[in-house]
């Protein structure tokens, strides 16, 4: 029996089916809790799905590459989903076009603050230049951020971790923060979370409001471009 169970485990743990299903179940549970708490920021489904799967991987001694063989089918959909952002963008095109000037000004200010403050704070805490390079593009969607770090001689794996942590932080913090300063413009709230916290922030914005989600998607795209241009400049100024 134990032998049989073990054989079954050996088989299952190697097929993509198991970890694909685990990812879906963990997310559905996390999303159900999020819905039950009327989308409370602390009940962020990404955050809770991630740590519960990590706990399961640790408990079963499963290496991440084995997990990813199953989870890659979900991961793949990330690209098409970003393309699909064109649909809400097109639907709200009039609202978006009217906000062109505020968007561009906020993009410039937000992008500089996101990069500059990250580097300055870490430097104040004594982080070495190598770490500062990996940190600078943390607000940008992972693929681009890793590319920026790599081009500047930093560690892209560290950047990937920082990007995800930044995404989750922004997604959790944005609602209470904006309520605190009584900022109710969903265009501004969405744009801010997309700029500061890329796709994970955009997902949070869509949970709250369609307009917020649309503006978050735009901010994510624009900030990827601007950060790639500004990071080398910022590092030249701030890393000495």
């Amino acid at each position: 029996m134990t032998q049989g169970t073990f054989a079954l485990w050996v088989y299952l743990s190697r097929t993509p089916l198991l970890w694909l299903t685990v990812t879906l179940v963990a997310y559905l549970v996390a999303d159900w809790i999020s819905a039950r708490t009327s989308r409370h920021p602390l009940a962020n489904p990404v955050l809770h799905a991630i740590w519960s799967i990590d706990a399961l991987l640790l408990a079963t001694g499963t290496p991440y590459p084995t997990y990813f063989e199953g989870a890659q089918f979900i991961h793949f959909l990330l690209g098409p989903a970003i393309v699909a952002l064109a649909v809400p963008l097109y639907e709200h095109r009039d609202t978006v076009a009217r906000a062109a000037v505020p968007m561009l000004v906020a993009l410039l200010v937000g992008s500089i603050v996101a990069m500059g403050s990250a580097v300055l704070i870490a430097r104040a805490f004594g982080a070495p230049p190598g770490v500062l390079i990996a940190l600078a593009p943390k607000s940008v969607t992972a693929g681009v951020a890793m590319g920026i770090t790599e081009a500047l001689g930093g560690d892209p794996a560290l950047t990937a971790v920082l990007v995800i942590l930044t995404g989750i932080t922004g997604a959790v913090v944005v609602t209470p923060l904006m309520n605190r300063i009584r900022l109710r413009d969903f265009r501004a709230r969405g744009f801010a979370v997309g700029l500061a916290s890329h796709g994970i922030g955009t997902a949070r914005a869509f949970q709250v409001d369609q307009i917020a989600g649309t503006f978050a998607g735009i901010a994510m795209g624009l900030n990827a471009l601007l950060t790639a241009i500004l990071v080398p400049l910022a590092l030249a100024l701030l890393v000495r």
Partner: protein
Amino acid sequence: MLFALTIILTCQLVGEVLVRGSGLPMPGPVIGMVLLLAILAIRGRFLPSTTVAEEAGSLETTSRGLLAHLSLLFVPAGVGVIEHLDVFATYGLALAASVVLSTVAALLATAVTFVAAARWFRAPGEEA
């Protein structure tokens, strides 16, 4: 559904090719999004909006389906954080402080600037 998915994937594919070919610092899917936006705009020009409405499997419903659980799509990459947690052993405090404080700063700076700029430069036709 199949047709819509094919259009979306084609946009992404062309986006990836353009990015790789030009060395543009943009993710391929973001270029794909711009392409899909262009397709929607062209279609909107030549087809009255009633004919492209909400039939099942349209670009609209397929895209909404993909976006409905956007959060889910970040889980597989997020789980990978566990592989690199060792870097936090050395610079944990610096990185944690930087990520949290700088994210808050970026959120505030962006949102406040947006609202201020929207007030300063009111688009023509918008009431004060």
